[in-house]
């Protein structure tokens, strides 16, 4: 996911950020415009197409009956996958998910799983024998930075709109997937000595470290992931946590 950038552009962006400004006119903590469309795919049991600025992502949910894991016989199964398909960016390659796609999927999965967003205990059909298995798959369509938050939003919105297809499988009536809360992730990157929220592609290119923080409805922390080859100080971490709570609450209002 790296491209060559001219030094003059890099220096200009760095200088702006040090002054508290960004090339696209945003302040350091501004999130780009969010557009969410749900129920866009009839063949899926839940779906959402999300735009975060110029980054675009689609997520679909498939819910099918299956066998529970032996150690959790009465609990439904929830898995999240992500693919960075070549359509979305010239640097994305065809083939099985690479380490970037795997990290993306696992960070989104952690936020959804650890927040208890989906009430997996309510997904039991016959205890020990049959449970609903809920597969969330995320595809990047157009990549302009911050896939973590775009993918999280798409997955959360797709799950929120999902229906358990009881009638299709002769397992009772169709009913909405039981949702308990909305986990929202906020990603920041470090550029120079500053942290900027919701980086676009160019900003990611000049950043050294990345931190994604997922909060629940109460503003408690449910998942975090530091990435990138740089470091963050304890003070910077503290700032990120404050912003994740504040910005998370704002976004929750938009999609709630």
């Amino acid at each position, binding site marked *: 996911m790296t491209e060559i950038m001219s030094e003059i552009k890099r220096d200009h962006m760095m200088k702006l950020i040090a002054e508290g400004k960004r090339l696209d006119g945003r302040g350091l903590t501004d999130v780009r415009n969010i557009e969410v469309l749900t129920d866009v795919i009839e063949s899926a049991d839940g779906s959402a197409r999300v735009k975060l600025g110029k980054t675009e992502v689609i997520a679909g949910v498939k819910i099918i009956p299956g066998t529970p894991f032996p*150690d*959790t016989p009465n609990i439904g199964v929830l898995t999240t996958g992500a693919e960075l398909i070549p359509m979305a960016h010239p640097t994305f390659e065809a083939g099985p998910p690479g*380490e970037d796609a*795997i*990290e993306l*999927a*696992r960070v989104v999965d*952690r936020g959804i*799983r*650890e*927040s208890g967003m989906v009430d997996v205990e309510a997904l039991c059909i016959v205890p020990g024998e049959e449970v609903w298995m809920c597969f969330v798959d995320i595809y990047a369509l157009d990549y302009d930075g911050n896939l973590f938050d775009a993918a999280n939003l798409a997955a959360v919105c797709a799950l929120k709109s999902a229906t358990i297809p009881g009638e299709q499988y002769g397992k009772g009536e169709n009913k909405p997937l039981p949702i308990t809360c909305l986990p929202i992730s906020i990603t920041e990157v470090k550029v120079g000595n500053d942290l900027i929220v919701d980086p676009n592609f160019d900003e990611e290119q000049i950043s050294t470290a990345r*931190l994604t923080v997922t909060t*629940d409805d109460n*503003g*408690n*922390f*449910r*998942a*975090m*992931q*530091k*990435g*990138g*080859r*740089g*470091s*963050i*100080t*304890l003070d910077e*971490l*503290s700032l990120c*946590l404050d912003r994740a*709570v504040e910005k998370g609450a704002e976004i929750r209002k938009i999609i709630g």
Partner: protein
Amino acid sequence: MSGHTDMVLVDENGLRIDGRTAEQHRPFKIEAGVLNNADGSAYVEIGKNKVLAAVYGPRECHPRHLQDPTKAIVQCKYNMQSFSVSDRKRPGPDRRSIEISKIISEALEKVVLTELYPRASIDVYIEILQANAGTRCAGLTAASVALADAGIPMRDIVPALACGKADGHVLLDLNKEEDNYGQADVPIAIIPSTDEIVLLQMDGNMTREEFDRGIKMAVAGCHELHELQKDALKRRYSKKAQEGN
């Protein structure tokens, strides 16, 4: 993190099932230079975790398209051996180990002076011989000792340790039961000379106050671990000096 148990993880006296207090870590053991072929190696035990790390390089970078003309890259491979967990682990990389390999590589790249070795690769292999919660921390702790043992110039040696929460208590260095049945796990790695964070993950449920308390414990634990890392290297080199190498 998602399991349920009737087991009491922290008793009324604040003691944990292995007899530790909330702020106590498990016993640490670190040895440097434990393998012959590798350019550098280390063996680490954190409680029941047993981990080997080996370093090869700087050497020619494969695959070649990953070469960076301005600096070396650090390529870490974290692997759990099939017998390291109670059920047999299917050999080979899975999604979890690919993610861990990536974040450990990134953490190490911050401290290795990669700019000294353009186009090269520094390959780090972490093998988990026995797992008991905290293998990525034990693995990174071992890897940075192995890098130093290989004589690779570094800004500092990185220790890694987790904090977390079980039975509602904020704890240092979770063991397997606390990890499985607890409410949060937060592995971190720091640069001891500056307390900068190079690895941080979190899953579970923590308030801000709990998280801040946990991080403080983990940073203090990392500093203790760092002393043992240095000690292991000193022992290794005093032995080498006696042997006349």
